[in-house]
């Protein structure tokens, strides 16, 4: 959007967040800030064991505590006893068996959070401990009996493509391990349920990524028609995938319906670690075959994703992983085998990058091995193999998206390297930071690369459409949609679209709730494309009707009209009228559903056009490492990202910088430690997140090449920033110390022992 000739905040400008003022003043209502007259607090009793049979649950002492109003267990669930995004395999409350540490067993409603805590402590549950399936490999085959009626393998998918008999002149092989990362949004899970006076329905304010999916799953469990469960998006404090699954929605609504009082539930941080799915830990083996010059001729790979106790989106994560085996590189042949399995570890599902993070960590490690094997450098090997539009993926799907991979690598490579670490560097700039343990003279600098491809939107035949309504009246536009605003900025973008399409200035977003059709999930980097497409479509329909109205009034064929800044102009005449004036005294309202093109399931050989579109990004990391102490400081991340059309530069930059920080977390800091099914670090003291001192300098270039498939020419930008930055940082550590490191996050002992 280079030629913006208006002062209005149209597409292409860094329009500011409409909720920004409220957020900086503390006035913005997050779900956890909500309060209702006569409100009760809800809390959840969770299993301390990763695998056990429940012998008995005794709530008799707890219910006698003054202030306790209600205790519910599986016996109180009026409808379906289980829920789930893809398969309904997860109990609302564990009934006979608990399959992971932290699985809900009961919920209580009481007058105060402390009363809730005491009530939970007073519930006695008798368990018979069962053997814990904690090693994902043991879930494959018959080594361990099924821990769930659906079996221990959630899904297996192979890919057989091209001439699989080909052997490379050069062969490199690696085993890679990716740790379990937490989304660690700051605003923990929260909901407020307000029962209808007749007890036949409930209104629920909830922090979620997908209102209509929650509504559907809640309706089944509560045995109510979906329209009797009216969901409203409460303020959301970040998401990153962790709010795609049900957490406290059913519990809160059920407590409210049982007590006929408003109930608020809000997880504490420790409970939040148990209350949502995490990024799948995975093991990936890859063997790359290449010509003597370094051109990839075949990739063999095997993936094992540990899905934990319940399926969540594990089957889709698996597909993302295996179908991104090749990365953003040409590859004519592949033999891939992948599993997502069930264990007694914490359930895993969506997190920013969704299976591609794991694949990318492996394929980028392989690219560096390949470069070393043929005696070239990381940039040359990647340019030699860079994917282009029109290439065929190992699934047989043609890459129709704009694919400027070589350009991304070149532009990233042009970004100047940071200055050398000065001899008198402040200790805060050294690895280890304020610990003041690293010595300047020990520190080694390294440079590493990571490049990635990410599918955007949902795959495998799923029609993840979005709905939006545009209402124009007296020059003002109101936009209605169910698109979850989780911080990404759709509430900024939607009015920008309306201003561009309709020539208005005054455009606002209505309440985000289920009183309109689904918007699909705020995930898969899809809302700019999908809900952006829906808002664009609704605004265009309104524009068409406005043109008809003005045409009829002035006896001009409406086909001759166009919007020019804030006016309607007759392109074949002299008539012009401001949009404000043209829409005085009338109301035009139109609803539009945007659907992306259809996709296909994969066949048994992993062949099929299963993805909608792709986005690409390159990262170069510069790190300082103290090899003796195993400490790392990420100095600079240079990146060029394929964004299609930039619709809001400030928002895009925010996604790039934020995603990089999360990828840095996975590279060197963040891991949920699970030992034999037990989570050992469920707190911000023990699960370390990047702070202001850990944040590297980010030098970003947005590579604008209009994406013809996208309604606004823009690709989703949310996920790519966090994907290849992780392998880039780990490659830089390898480069600094000359040691092969095959896992992330990189721990001090991986460097110094």
């Amino acid at each position, binding site marked *: 959007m280079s030629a913006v000739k208006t002062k209005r905040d149209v597409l292409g400008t860094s329009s500011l967040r409409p909720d920004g003022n409220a957020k900086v003043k503390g006035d913005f209502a997050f779900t956890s800030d909500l309060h209702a007259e006569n409100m009760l607090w809800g809390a959840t009793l969770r299993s301390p064991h990763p695998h056990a049979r429940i012998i008995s649950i005794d709530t008799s002492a707890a219910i006698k505590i003054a202030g306790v109003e209600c205790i519910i267990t599986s016996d109180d669930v009026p409808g379906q006893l289980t829920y789930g995004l893809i398969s309904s395999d997860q109990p609302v409350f564990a009934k006979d068996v608990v399959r992971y540490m932290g699985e809900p067993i009961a919920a209580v409603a009481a007058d105060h959070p402390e009363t809730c805590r005491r009530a939970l402590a007073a519930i006695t549950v008798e368990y018979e401990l069962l053997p814990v399936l904690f090693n994902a490999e043991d879930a494959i085959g018959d080594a361990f009996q099924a821990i769930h009626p659906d079996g221990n393998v959630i899904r297996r998918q192979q890919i057989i493509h091209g001439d699989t008999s080909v052997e490379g002149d050069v062969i490199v092989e690696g085993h890679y391990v990716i740790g379990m990362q937490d989304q*660690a949004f*700051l605003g923990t899970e929260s909901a407020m349920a307000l029962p209808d006076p007749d007890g036949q329905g409930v209104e629920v304010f909830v922090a979620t990524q997908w209102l209509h999916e929650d509504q559907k799953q809640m309706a089944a469990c509560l045995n109510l028609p979906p329209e009797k469960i009216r969901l409203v998006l409460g303020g959301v404090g970040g998401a990153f995938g962790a709010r795609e699954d049900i957490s406290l929605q059913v519990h809160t609504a059920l407590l409210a319906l049982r007590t006929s009082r408003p109930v608020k539930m809000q997880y504490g941080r420790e409970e939040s670690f148990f209350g949502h799915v995490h990024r799948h830990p995975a093991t990936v083996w890859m063997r790359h075959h290449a010509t003597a010059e370094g051109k990839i001729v075949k990739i063999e790979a095997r993936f094992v994703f540990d899905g934990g106790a319940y399926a969540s989106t594990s089957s889709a994560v698996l597909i993302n992983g295996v179908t991104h085996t090749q990365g953003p590189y040409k590859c004519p042949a592949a033999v891939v085998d992948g599993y997502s399995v069930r264990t007694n570890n914490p359930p895993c599902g969506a997190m920013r990058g969704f299976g591609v993070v794991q694949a990318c960590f492996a394929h980028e490690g392989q690219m560096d091995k390949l470069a070393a094997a043929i005696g070239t450098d990381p940039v040359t090997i990647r340019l030699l193999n860079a994917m282009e539009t029109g290439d065929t993926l190992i699934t047989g799907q043609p890459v129709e998206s704009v694919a400027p991979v070589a350009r991304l690598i070149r532009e990233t490579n042009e970004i100047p390297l940071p200055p050398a670490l000065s001899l008198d560097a402040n200790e805060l700039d050294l690895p280890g930071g304020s610990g003041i343990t690293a010595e300047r003279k020990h520190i080694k600098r390294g440079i590493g690369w990571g490049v990635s491809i990410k599918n955007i939107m949902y795959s495998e035949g799923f029609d993840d459409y979005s709905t939006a309504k545009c209402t124009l009246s007296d020059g003002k536009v109101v936009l209605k949609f169910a698109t979850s605003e989780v911080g990404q900025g759709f509430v900024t973008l939607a009015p920008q679209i309306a201003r561009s399409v309709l020539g208005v200035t005054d455009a606002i977003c209505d309440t985000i709730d289920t009183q309109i059709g689904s918007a699909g999930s705020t995930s898969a980097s899809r809302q700019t494309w999908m809900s952006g497409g829906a808002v664009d479509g609704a605004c265009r329909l309104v524009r068409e009707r406005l043109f008809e109205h003005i045409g009829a009034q002035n006896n001009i064929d409406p086909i001759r009209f166009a919007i020019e800044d804030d006016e309607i102009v007759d392109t074949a005449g002299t008539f012009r009228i401001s949009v404000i004036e043209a829409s005085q005294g009338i109301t035009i309202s139109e609803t539009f559903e945007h659907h992306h093109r259809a996709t296909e399931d994969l066949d048994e050989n992993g062949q099929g056009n299963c993805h909608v579109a792709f986005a690409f990004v390159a990262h170069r990391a510069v790190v300082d490492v103290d090899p003796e102490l195993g400490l790392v400081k990420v100095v600079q991340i240079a990146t060029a990202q394929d964004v299609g059309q930039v619709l809001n530069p400030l928002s895009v930059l925010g996604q790039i910088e934020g995603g990089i920080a999360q990828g840095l977390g996975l590279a060197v800091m963040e891991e949920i430690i699970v030992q034999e099914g037990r989570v050992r670090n469920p707190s911000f003291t023990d699960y370390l997140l990047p702070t202001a001192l850990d944040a590297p300098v980010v030098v970003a270039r947005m590579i604008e090449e209009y994406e013809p498939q996208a309604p606004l020419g823009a690709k989703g930008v949310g996920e790519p920033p966090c994907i290849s930055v992780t392998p880039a940082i780990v490659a830089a550590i390898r480069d600094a110390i000359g040691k092969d490191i095959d896992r992330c996050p990189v721990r001090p002992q991986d460097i110094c022992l």
Partner: protein
Amino acid sequence: MSSNEFYTLKVNGAEHQVSDAWIGESLLYVLRERLGLPGSKGACEQGECGSCTVYVDGAAVCSCLVMAASAVESEIATVEGLNTDGSLTDVQEAFVTEGAVQCGFCTPGLVMAVHHLLDENDSPSELEVKEALSGNICRCTGYGRIFAAVDKVVAVRKGAHQ
């Protein structure tokens, strides 16, 4: 879950009587749930994330770690008290215009931390800014736009004094 005792907190210059409260309540809980001041956020309950930052007698503290009943002798200031006329402070304004706000859950705490930093040091170095804000976790932004907001405030304040 209550007693018949009461205590008084002085928040943003006004006295608030807290009655029928459980004595174990944190200052964060009392501010949010009893005094109608939910601007301070709770995200970790152990002083790691800074979302609940308030000033107690001028010191920036994590209100999740302070027992409310122990703060009866103190002057407490929250994000709601930064500017009572409804306008934005320069720090708040810069957070909005520089893109330092995404989900916004960390924002009130960070705004409090930045004001505190700049009150004590009107021209902090890059490292001093990073150190001062390292007790406030932001999961969305990667901090880049937050640093930009601080830089902007410093520059504008300097310009105003020249």
